[in-house]
């Protein structure tokens, strides 16, 4: 593992300054992706700028009709947060189902979405809830945030500070784990705001995306039958050892149905 200089700023401004001062520096949030990548020799940044000392990035609060979660809030904190559990229990459950206990105690919301791993859980929640990603200099709508395979709308040096999640009337996330890694082979997040329904999918494509046919059907009628017989196009979906694009397309509809069932409190 190559050596990198280590910095632990206590403010967002200082972190930004360190980022610009060090060529090829990387932000260190929970370190659940970057550190294994460095160990495997896939990444060799010159500097790691650890955000764990920036206290304003941690924690969550209710802001009007939204739940705002700091970028450095760990998955475990979200899973156990009373605000998340009461306002968006589907999001708390999503966070509680990421990785294992060790991962949840280190991994963070900001780190997860900045990485845009195609099989990560959080992107489905961010996109499914139509959240707003706040950075030190602007806000980015979820629909504009996830750009591709490990690719986001973030500019070099841009630091996520928080994510603002609108509170839905109903929501649910159902994950189908890949048997070995237990990342999402497919994960579907369904949220209803009034009549409008958003359905976001992770694991199946290059990055999280919205399943428009399901959204349309569920907006017409929010019940499990609306998902039946819907054919999700498999064209751009992933194929690997654990599932073809067709299988993933099939799972999207199956999981959406189960998510709706859960959201409606039907067993």
């Amino acid at each position: 593992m190559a050596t990198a200089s280590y910095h632990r700023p206590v403010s967002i401004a200082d972190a930004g300054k360190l980022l610009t001062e060090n060529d090829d520096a990387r932000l260190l949030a929970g370190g659940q992706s970057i550190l294994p990548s460095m160990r495997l020799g896939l990444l060799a940044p010159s500097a790691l700028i650890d955000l764990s000392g920036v206290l304003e990035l941690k924690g969550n609060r209710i802001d009007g009709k939204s739940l705002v979660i700091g970028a450095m809030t760990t998955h475990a904190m979200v899973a156990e947060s009373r605000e998340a559990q009461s306002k968006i229990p589907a999001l708390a459950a999503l966070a509680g189902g990421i990785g294992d206990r060790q991962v949840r105690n280190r991994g963070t919301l900001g780190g997860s979405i900045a990485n845009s791993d195609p099989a990560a859980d959080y992107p489905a929640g961010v996109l499914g809830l139509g959240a707003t990603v706040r950075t030190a200099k602007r806000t980015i709508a979820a629909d504009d945030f996830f750009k591709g395979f490990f690719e986001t709308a973030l500019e070099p040096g841009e630091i996520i500070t928080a994510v603002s999640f609108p509170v839905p009337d109903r929501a649910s996330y159902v994950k189908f784990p890949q048997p070995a890694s237990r990342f999402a082979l497919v994960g579907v997040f369904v949220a209803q705001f009034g009549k409008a329904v958003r359905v976001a999918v992770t694991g199946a494509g290059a990055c999280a995306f919205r399943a428009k046919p399901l959204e349309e059907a569920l907006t017409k009628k929010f019940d499990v039958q609306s998902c039946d017989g819907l054919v999700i196009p498999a064209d751009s979906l992933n194929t690997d050892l654990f599932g073809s694009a067709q299988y993933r397309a099939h799972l999207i509809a199956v999981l959406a149905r189960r998510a709706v069932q859960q959201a409606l409190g039907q067993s």
Partner: protein
Amino acid sequence: MNAARESLIGRSVERREDYRFLTGVGQYTDDIKLERQSYAYFVRSPHAHARIRAIDAKAALAAAGVLAIFTGKDVASLGGLPCGWLINSVDGSPMKEPKHPIIAEDTVRHVGDQVALIVAESLAEAKAAAALVEVDYEMLPAVVDTATANQSKTAVHAIAPDNVCYNWAIGDAAAVDAAFARAAHVTKLSFVNNRLIPNAIEPRAANAAYSRADESYTLYVTSQNPHVVRLLMTAFVLGLPEHKVRVVAPDVGGGFGSKIYLYAEETALVWASKRVGRPIKWTAERSESFLTDAHGRDHVTTAELALDKDGKFIALRVDTTANMGAYLSTFASCIPTILYATLLAGQYATPAIHCRVRAVFTHTAPVDAYRGAGRPEATYVVERIVELAARELKMDPAELRRRNFIRSFPYASPVGLTYDTGDYEATLKRVQEIADVKGYAARKAASSAKGLLRGLGYSCYIEACGIAPSNIAGALGARAGLFEAGEVRVHPTGKVTVFTGSHSHGQGHETTFSQVVADKLGIAMDDIDIQHGDTGKVLFGMGTYGSRSLAVGGTAIIKAVDKVIAKGKKIAAHLLEAGESDIEFANGEFRVAGTDRKKAFAEVAFAAYVPHNYPLDRLEPGLNENAFYDPTNFTYPAGSYICEVEVDPATGVVRIDRFAACDDFGNVVNPMIVEGQVHGGLAQGIGQALLEGCVYNADGQLITGSFSDYALPRADDLPTFVVETAKGTPCTHNPLGVKGCGEAGAIGSPPAVINALVDALAPYGVRDVAMPATPYRVWQTIQTAKR
């Protein structure tokens, strides 16, 4: 007379080794730190097949901390890693045995093949230097597929142009043909026994040191059989004097077979330690383990079962292609032959069996024994085809099995084994009870109501443990003995150190063997220490594999204990002024029969070492005995398993709802340890059935090279097992009447799971689901069947 103390045999004594394992004070190979040790890192081939045009190591050699770099040229004059079993083809020709160099010479033959050994002051420096080694490869096409390897235009080795290592057969082909000609029903199925990667929790490691003082070598290594490692390494590869090499296998964190073999890495380290003049340490990274530990299974088989009109099996015909990988690992050749085809009778009195086995080379990691070693593959053939026959005949699969059980022992099978004892009806009957087969219909209806499919599958396995005897094995091609050695050293105070050639790497020998010795000698377990895993301490050993430790290694110890008692009687007779024939030994006391004149075991031991009042004219002082034991036969554990699965047809997810096992291991010394062995075996067998599958792509790249893609079973993949050990039929030819339990779970469970799954999918007309039956594969199977 004192009341006889309660026997220790059959008691679930807590494992005495667990304290050190659970509190982090075990001493594993990686914990061994030698004075001035250096570190090794291997440059490995990224290609499955390539010619090495040139290696430029100049920059690497000049890098910081680098002490030496060795390539194939440096070791070309050494021998290759040997194969311990000669298999002859049906035409009488010997198997093809290509050289297995410890560092690739001019060709690499699998991804991970070692190309250069870098020795440096630190691991980081060795790794950094490895990145500077420039290897000029001429890439060549790879042979990967087991079934078609013999049709490839590419040869893995020039001496086997068709990639066939051997074409072997067993059984009476003419009798089988005749039986098929008159069969009322024939069931036929082709299937794959999926390739597995062992994944012991502790990766392989070694630390080798050369001493100029006495020109000796010491190797610490993760081995299941250090004496065998020493013998093969010194006599066949390095040409070193065996008595000048000490091999120590300290605490070893699991093996499952993968640590039986002599590997290139430790051999190269021993050789290089003299050249470098420093101890050299190497510990595999997990990704190296995936690439270079010997893999398991990998068979492609077609099986046909012939039945008469009454549902009696009249013949079984099997044709198997077995993948050897790129080189012959230490016992690779005997796994799909001697340990596979000989088991094809299973629990059934099938009168005629014939099996052909074609072993092929491919550009993949070597394949060798992995928990069960041939016997899981055989059990899978028999139990899948039998269950399918029952399905085709619309018979209860348990009834079809009952109709064909062997019921009279000893039983000479048509594939060369003689089963000494067994009671297959008893384990089947009992497992049906503990699995609540009676309640199955109601459970199936309940699943149905939830839109789920439920299936129930049986597996009635036979196993052959403690491969033996040596002379017959030798006639069949074994190049090693199959005995075990033990030594019982009684100290002057009556404390005992037992040295055993069996090696413990999770099996709990220190507890089980102590129970046996304490029971025999009538002394406390705490007064007994079990030593193993060091050629410098233990007289000899063939090691641990094939569920042989207690049946073979334990018997050697008992024979040594018997000699101790026999000598003790002579000493006691002298002390008690009685005739030797009047001395009885029981409960730790030598006693003149029918009197209260006695000497405690410790008193006799003391007299042996302080021989003041002692028959020195007739008897040597001391109380220390060795024994070697070569069994007259295998032992034959057997059992019946029932698996019940629930399948979600929408996703293909298979949930094991219940799993019941009833095993006949003969007599049981420690039921808790035996149950633990069964649990572990079941987990691995279920892993094979539902989760684990090693996949190479067409270029020979390992796709499942990490835990992200190779699925090991986790606790929540498994149900709460219902495990019972039958009262059992004791083995007839060892003094303990024990049979062996280490592999049973892994042998018996895969067909039970797949039979249950096929049963669940019966509404779709499914006859087979390939292992591992991942959700995707099950879903695909259903989609295909629906069309």
